[in-house]
């Protein structure tokens, strides 16, 4: 019997467990699939964004992991202590050592406020918050309920981060939230980003820069946070610029799991370098990385994990039967961007095509509008929670192709 180990039962790990259970167990019992994760709770991470504004609460974003794991997959709740790629073995915190024929790493990414001086210290949870965790979002909800106003600064410490559009969504939703509370005139919104601007792709920048200006969200570009001074309430950049704040909402440094680094499988941020089209490790042909754990130039987002798993499943079945891996994954991402006041944007792009205007998924019809605010996009985003829990996690088929399509997109001069 062949053994497949999947490390991590988050979005990518759960989806690939469901997909491969269906593909490998369809007509044989030759495969044993084991899924390992230290936590019993699955988080709907896109929902964290809505919690500070009271739109979602805790119950919207948590469910037991076991509800999404198929009967044909063994689930072990344990920490992962060490991966030994040379010996095809994984050591768990419960003392077990598991041998594998194939290993899929889906251990994700997490925030590390302790990596920035002053950030995750005594002011954390008081005048400094994050919405990149459930606890963080809930604490920020409590703070925003009674906040009297002042300067709210959102800073991204360093890229890549999970859901790269979430900081913009937070600021646009904050604008709407404070307007609706009748206190927008007492709130200054500032976005401090290490990138050269809020939008860096030419077409998106052309179409969307006005949104932030209209919403009076100020952008401080190329701001590389060196440290936070929590008592003086200011951010200091490497080039000695300072931004004072009354309330700091921070997206701390994101890193892959520590065990990836300590097992010698990671890059400088503990992400696993793999082929960007097939997810196979360059060093070990029986190791793959999916989802946020993979060091590929695609966004760290649930939609990317979904399209990745879609292309990976069939590819993997061919691979174990001796076929070459096909370069099927094109970096496809599809993200709703909540923009406040019941509206949203949608972007659809891949490794080679930047976000373009148009309609999705039906050319000319939509109902969703690409790179343009609409109510339909907002409803798409709100419906997405149901889709996530009921379709995506169980890797059920969606009538949407995994590869990005140019149909419906407006090109230069057309």
């Amino acid at each position: 019997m062949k053994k497949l180990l999947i490390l991590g039962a988050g979005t990518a790990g759960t989806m690939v467990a469901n997909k491969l259970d269906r593909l490998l167990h369809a007509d044989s019992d030759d495969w044993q699939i084991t899924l390992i994760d230290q936590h019993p709770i699955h988080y709907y991470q896109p929902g964290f964004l809505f919690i500070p504004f009271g739109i979602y609460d805790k119950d919207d974003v948590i469910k037991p992991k076991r509800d999404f794991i198929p009967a044909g997959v063994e689930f072990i709740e344990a920490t992962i202590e060490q991966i030994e790629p040379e010996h095809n073995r994984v050591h768990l915190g419960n003392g077990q050592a598991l041998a594998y024929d194939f290993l899929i790493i889906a251990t994700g990414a997490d925030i590390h406020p302790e990596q920035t001086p002053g950030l995750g210290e005594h002011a954390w949870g008081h005048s400094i918050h994050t919405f990149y965790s459930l606890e963080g979002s809930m604490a920020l909800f409590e703070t925003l309920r009674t906040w009297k106003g002042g300067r709210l600064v959102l800073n991204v410490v360093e890229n890549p981060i999970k859901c790269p559009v979430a900081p913009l969504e937070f600021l646009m939703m904050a604008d709407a939230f404070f307007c609706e509370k009748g206190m927008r005139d007492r709130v200054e919104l500032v976005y401090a980003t290490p990138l050269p601007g809020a939008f860096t792709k030419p077409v998106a920048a052309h179409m969307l820069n006005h949104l932030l200006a209209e919403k009076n969200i100020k952008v401080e570009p190329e701001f590389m946070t060196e440290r936070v001074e929590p008592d003086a309430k200011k951010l200091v950049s490497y080039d000695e610029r300072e931004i004072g704040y009354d309330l700091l909402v921070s997206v701390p440094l994101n890193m892959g799991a520590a065990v990836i680094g300590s097992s010698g499988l990671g890059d400088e941020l503990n992400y696993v370098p793999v082929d960007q089209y097939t997810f196979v490790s360059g060093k070990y042909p029986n190791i793959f990385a999916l989802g946020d754990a993979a060091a590929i130039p695609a966004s760290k987002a649930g939609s990317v994990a979904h399209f990745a798993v879609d292309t990976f499943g069939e590819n993997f079945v061919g691979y174990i039967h001796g076929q070459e891996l096909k370069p099927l994954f094109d970096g496809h991402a599809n993200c709703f961007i909540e923009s406040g006041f019941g509206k949203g944007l949608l972007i659809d792009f891949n490794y080679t095509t930047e976000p373009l205007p148009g309609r999705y998924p039906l050319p000319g019809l939509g109902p969703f509008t690409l790179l343009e605010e609409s109510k339909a996009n907002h409803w798409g985003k709100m419906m997405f929670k149901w889709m996530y829990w009921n379709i995506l996690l169980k890797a059920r088929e969606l009538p949407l192709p995994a590869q990005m399509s140019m149909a419906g997109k407006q090109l230069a001069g057309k």
Partner: protein
Amino acid sequence: MTTLQTQTTLTREIAGRTVQVNEEGYMTQANEWSREIAGAIAHDEGLLDLTPAHWKVIEFCRQTANGGKSPTLRQITGGTGITTKEMFALFPKGPAKKVARIAGLGKPEGCV
């Protein structure tokens, strides 16, 4: 309906050679780059004298560029042993962007 020109071929003469650039002046063909071009771009950026430390960073970026994309600041500091603070001293005001331009690579970008 908005229509936009997404693929524009612009050229510019740098250090006596004609190279392809984008609207913001970043070179788009990594193989057109040379050390003389790097020196000329650096000069335009206000860096009149490229020291061995500058070259160490530029060469690291050239070697590790992935599909014409410059490495991140963290990759540069990890790979060269030069600290982030020193990077800001060597390439003031946005070292990641400045190095990318001098090394003939794409600037750091987000997804949108």
